[in-house]
């Protein structure tokens, strides 16, 4: 793995920043160089959120992603805003419960996961983000599913330990989802 630039975007409240933190912590535990840059200010207050995560074997230059290798789009405005910036050969993960559109680009690999519907079915509505993360780790050639439990434990505060299992369940759902 050289450098993977991951852009996660969606509505505020969908756990965009948390999903990004999960990837960043995972990279940290794997001794990678990582950066995590959130959108802040009017964007956040206006309802859309995005997060730039870079995982690399070498020191991270700019933490700002202009051409993502991976786009995770959790709503339609985010998909429309960023789809053209994905590098050719890159990957696009989208929540197909919330995005009902055909992607015209043929030079990117598209993974559609009805994450919000899957999460609702299992009464874990706020974990669509982690379902997509599970699917991403399973399908990206340079990321792995290993070490996710340790990462989630790092990320969830001790007071909320019950959430570790829920997050792990969501990740496993995404991992096992077949396109």
């Amino acid at each position: 793995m050289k450098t993977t630039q991951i852009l996660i975007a969606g509505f505020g409240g969908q756990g965009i920043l948390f999903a990004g933190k999960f990837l960043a912590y995972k990279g940290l535990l794997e001794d990678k160089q990582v950066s995590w840059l959130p959108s802040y200010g009017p964007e956040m207050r206006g309802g859309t959120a995005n997060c730039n995560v870079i995982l690399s074997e070498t020191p991270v230059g700019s933490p700002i992603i202009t051409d993502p290798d991976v786009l995770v789009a959790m709503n339609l405005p985010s998909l429309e805003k960023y789809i053209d910036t994905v590098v050719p050969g890159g990957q696009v993960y989208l929540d197909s419960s919330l995005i009902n559109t055909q992607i015209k680009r043929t030079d990117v690999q598209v993974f559609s996961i009805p994450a919000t519907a899957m999460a609702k079915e299992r009464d874990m509505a706020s974990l669509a983000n982690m379902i997509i993360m599970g699917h991403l780790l399973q399908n990206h050639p340079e990321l792995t599913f290993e070490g996710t439990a340790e990462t989630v434990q790092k990320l969830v505060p001790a007071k909320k330990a019950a959430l570790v299992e829920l997050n792990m369940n969501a990740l496993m759902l995404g991992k096992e989802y077949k396109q």
Partner: protein
Amino acid sequence: MAERVLMKGNEAIAEAAIRAGCRHYFGYPITPQTEIAAYMAKKMPKIGGVFLQAESEIASINMVYGAAAAGMRVMTSSSSPGISLKAEGLSYIAGSDVPALVVNVQRGGPGLGGIQPSQSDYFQATKGGGHGDYRMIVLAPASVQEMANLTIKGFNLADKYLMTSMILADGTIGQMMEPISFEDAQIETYEKPWALTGTDCKRKHNVVNSLYLQPDQLEKKNFERFERYRQVEENEAMWEEYMMEDAEICVVAFGIASRVAKNAIVAARKEGIKVGLIRPITLWPFPKKPLAAAAEKVNSFISVELSMGQMIEDVRLATQCKKPVSLCNRCGGMIPSPDEVLETIRNAQKGV
């Protein structure tokens, strides 16, 4: 290997300050640096320190002045418009020769401006801001690790030279998370015989003051102060050189701009363009020596800034205008893309 933790740049400043022995924080919230105040509010009461949200920026800088006069390691933090409000206090602190740490996580200006990242307080930080002849040590972190390291360094230098150290960061470095370690923290402590700590009737009382009505006395004070500043200029300039060995073009950039510039330099090198970077880590004292040396071997300079072009003046001064200096900039909260910097490098290569 040292344990690495993920932290936001703003949190790294707060944690580093506490580790450096700072137990007094006075501030007033403003985006994009509020995490510093939030971290202090959470931690200070647990370690016997003081966190105080003042009624205004002006109040908070004067509380810093007071605690500094009492010999405490003390800090405040704000963002651009808030720093303007603190300018009077900064001048009084300088005029009283007491040490303090002030953080400016810059946002777009002038006026109330915006809340996205900027570097347009360069002039304010390096040339004054407040009135009178004075300087601040201005440190420009380009990573979360440097947010921590330079905070500690800033306290050390402030105590050593009896002046204000300013951390001049920006919204990006403040908000982003990167792994950091505190293992190599070098914390220095200094005796403060001048501090107002109470005499116990055992010594003559100390005076901390910036009022000198006799012009000859005030001049003498200024001369003494500038002798210290001269030592700072001689001993404390810090910078990083990146791919400068064979460079024909020298990019000069600090903070977030330097990280964008590194991406562009890597891309330009792939096109066979010999380009390197000098990254000032101290903006005052400005690293004149490496720039003067570079002026003897490169063909041109490019200043990359998140402003209308402020540092570029110091680049021209340091290189004595021996080689052309062009500007690659965005402002108002916009950040130049690596492609924009690359295009400027290509133009410099063509001599445009």
